[in-house]
Every structure is written in C-alpha cells, then in structure tokens.
C-alpha cells in the first residue's frame, strides 16, 4: 500500500518536473484568451542592386504592357485620324457591398482579461529596428485566490510574404514600473510545440505595459504584414 502511494507521488513529481509550468497550466483551466492584432506596414528598404533589373526598367515594362491592349487595335501609324479626345480606355469603377451583423450578449468574464487596444499598427522601413513604448496594455482583473497564470505568444509568423514572428520582441512590465533591461522575442505558438510562454503569475489584479521592438529584415518587400499577440489566463 505504501509502495503504491509512493509510486503515485513519484509519478506526479516526475510529471511536474518534466512538464514544468506547462504541466501545471494543464492542471488549471483556461479561463480566457484574447489577441491583439499587430499590423506592420513595411516600406521597402532603399533600393540596392540585387541582380534583377533596376526599378525604372520594371516601371517601363508595366507601362508597355498597359498600352498593349490599345496598340493591338491600331493600324500603321502614318497620318492618324483623330476622332477626338484622348486615346485611352474609359473605365467606370464598380462598387458592391455586403452586410455584416451580430447580436451582442453580455459576458461576465469580459473584464477578467482585456486589452486597451485591439490593434497595433506599426509603420516601419525594412532593414530597421524600432521600439514602440507601451504599444498596448494587458489587464488581468482577478483579485481572489487561486493564483492566476498569464501566458503569451504570437499566433504565427507575420503573414503575407512572411517574416519570422521572433523578430518582434516584447518588454512586458507592470504599468507604472520601470521596463525590464531588455526585450525578449515573442515565442511563436506553432514553432514552440504549441506551447505559450508563461509571462506572469499573481493573486492580485495587474496591468502590464508592453513595449514592442521590431526588427524587419532588409529583404522583406513592402506591404502589410500581420500577426496576433495572444494572451491566455489560467487558474
């Protein structure tokens, strides 16, 4: 009997040691999960020779293609008869709409875990690093036992032509306190064996400021890129 009890305790200890905080998290329940959309508008790095044709050549190619459809309808150009006006295609714009609708019902847990800003928009040039102070806040509004655990991470790498999510670092600190000495890269959930990073644990309410530091590789083309910073609370 004692041996059986010993084995159970030993197995539990091994489970906790092997899984660490993740194992503990699984013993708790996920209570809420929210996401802050991070939208990055990348302006291209200054032009450098990359082996391809220079930008002006690309522009000329596009122009030539643009006039091709009209040229196809012309005869040899000697003494043109202009019927009047400019020789271009006359297009109208087209517009259509769809309705999006929803019924909103109350959520008693809506204030358990929340942000001050559903979306962060960053405009930055490729090949640069920049920091954004307190880009958003995350609040856990739980003041009674048991203790809560807050986990974070990115849902995925930046979409579009894609660049790594770990290029986005965070400095997460209690609002009103000093930032940490350094920022640490976000973990990317699917790249981390579908595990989040344990950010904080407490038994009182807390609001965290999140400074973001983004490094965009110079090879990233201009465009819009997006990911989600996901926050999950367990207790």
């Amino acid at each position, binding site marked *: 009997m004692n041996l059986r009890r010993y084995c159970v305790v030993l197995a539990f200890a091994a489970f906790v040691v092997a899984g660490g905080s993740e194992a503990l998290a699984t013993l708790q329940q996920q209570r809420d999960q929210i996401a802050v959309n991070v939208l990055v508008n990348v302006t291209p790095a200054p032009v450098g020779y990359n082996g391809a044709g220079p930008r002006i050549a690309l522009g000329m190619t596009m122009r030539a293609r643009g006039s091709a459809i009209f040229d196809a309808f012309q005869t040899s150009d000697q003494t043109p008869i202009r019927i009047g006006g400019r020789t271009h295609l006359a297009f109208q714009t087209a517009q259509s709409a769809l309705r999006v*609708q929803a019924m909103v*019902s109350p959520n008693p847990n809506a204030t358990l875990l929340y942000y001050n800003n559903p979306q962060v928009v960053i405009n930055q040039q490729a090949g640069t690093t920049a920091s954004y102070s307190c880009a958003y806040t995350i609040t856990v509004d739980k003041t009674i036992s048991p203790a809560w655990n807050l986990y974070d991470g990115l849902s995925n790498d930046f979409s579009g032509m894609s660049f790594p999510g770990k290029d986005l670092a965070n400095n997460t600190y209690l609002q009103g306190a000093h930032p940490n000495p350094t920022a640490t890269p976000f973990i990317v959930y699917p790249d981390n064996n579908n595990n989040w990073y344990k950010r904080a644990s407490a038994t009182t309410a807390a609001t965290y400021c999140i400074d973001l530091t983004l490094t965009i590789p110079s090879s990233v083309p201009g465009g819009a890129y997006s990911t989600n910073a996901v926050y999950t609370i367990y207790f």
Partner: protein
Amino acid sequence: MRGWIGFCTLTVAAILLSVMPASAGAGPVKVQWYVTGILKFTLTPNYNTGYGPVPAKFGTQPTPNPGAGACLLGCADDFNTVVQGGQYLYKYAAHLHVVTNDANGFLVYGEGSADFSDGGANSFPVSGSLYYLPSGATSDSNTGFSPGYPFNKTSGTVNPSTPLFGSAPTITYMTYPAPMFTATAPTADYYQDYELKVPANAPVSSSEYFVWVVYTVVPQ
C-alpha cells in the same frame, strides 16, 4: 418657318458638296478607335458550404453556426450571437470576382461604411473590430487567431449618411485609401474570411448590430 430655313440650308450644302472636286491621293491612313472599358465585379457572401462563425480557438475547430440572416451564396454575413470581448472567425465570408479588359489590372478597396450600429443609439467602432483574411475557394484552415487585416471606417462620402439595415450604401471617394488588393492581371478572384473582435464595452442591445462593408474596384 424654322423648318423651312433648316431645309433650305441643308439643300444648299448638299448642292455645294456635289460640285466640289474630290481630292485624290495615296498613302497610309491611321485608323484607331476606342475600346469600351469592361469592368465586371461580383461580390458573393457565404460563398461555400460550411460558411459561418466559429469562436476563436486553437486546435480542432467547432462547426460554424451562422445566424438567420445568412444564406448560402448571398444574404448577410451573420455572426449570430456573440459575447462582449469575444473573438470570432467567419468562414467563407466573401468572394470577390473581378473581370476587366484593362491589361493594367485593377485596385480593390474595402472599407466599413460606418461603425457597427444597432439602428438606434448604440454603436461600436468597426476599426479594430472587423478584419479580413485570405481564405480558400472550397477549403479553409483559418482559425479566429489567424492574422487578419483591418476594415477601417471610410473617410469617403457615404450615401445614405445614416446606416440602413436593409439598404446598401455607396461611397464616393475624393481620395482612395490604401488598396486591399492590387491586381496586375485583368481577371482575379479573392476569397475572404472575416474576423470579429467584439469590444468588451460594446453595449448589449436587443437589436442586431450591423455594418455595410463596401468594396470598390478601380482600374489601374
């Protein structure tokens, strides 16, 4: 009287033209003509079976459960009942089909015509609440946490200026926003899911919240 004057004028002109010598000559003549621009845009909500909203979660996805306002290949994108602070994915929300004979291609703009409104005093912002993201024609691996791009409230002139549940508005632009898509081919299809992040402070209402998303296609 005026009719007689017109008749006489035309008669004199015809006689003069008939006695004038025709100029003769040889040489190439350039003939050119206008081609009528064709731009056809078809917008189809709920474009595939399995359309509808699912709560945002990782792992196995729930079955979509659209509201009564949605129907296959039409109607509205109805997120059904959502909770304050909740986040949702709407699968197969919109299919945009564009055909033009402009070899330059075209630009697509998409914006909210207003904020979400319940038709009365309650509203919440469309910016930061409603997002779009690429989907597939017949398959969809997105979740409510897949990266999306925001629909913003337009700065164009909306007609009618007051949102109407049953009537699609139009937007007139003095300046276009950033394009949603830039096509360099004359024909393209775009498939979109939507995401809805309900603000935690969105007022609870007994009426349905709605917003019209307006797409505009402009040849390049």
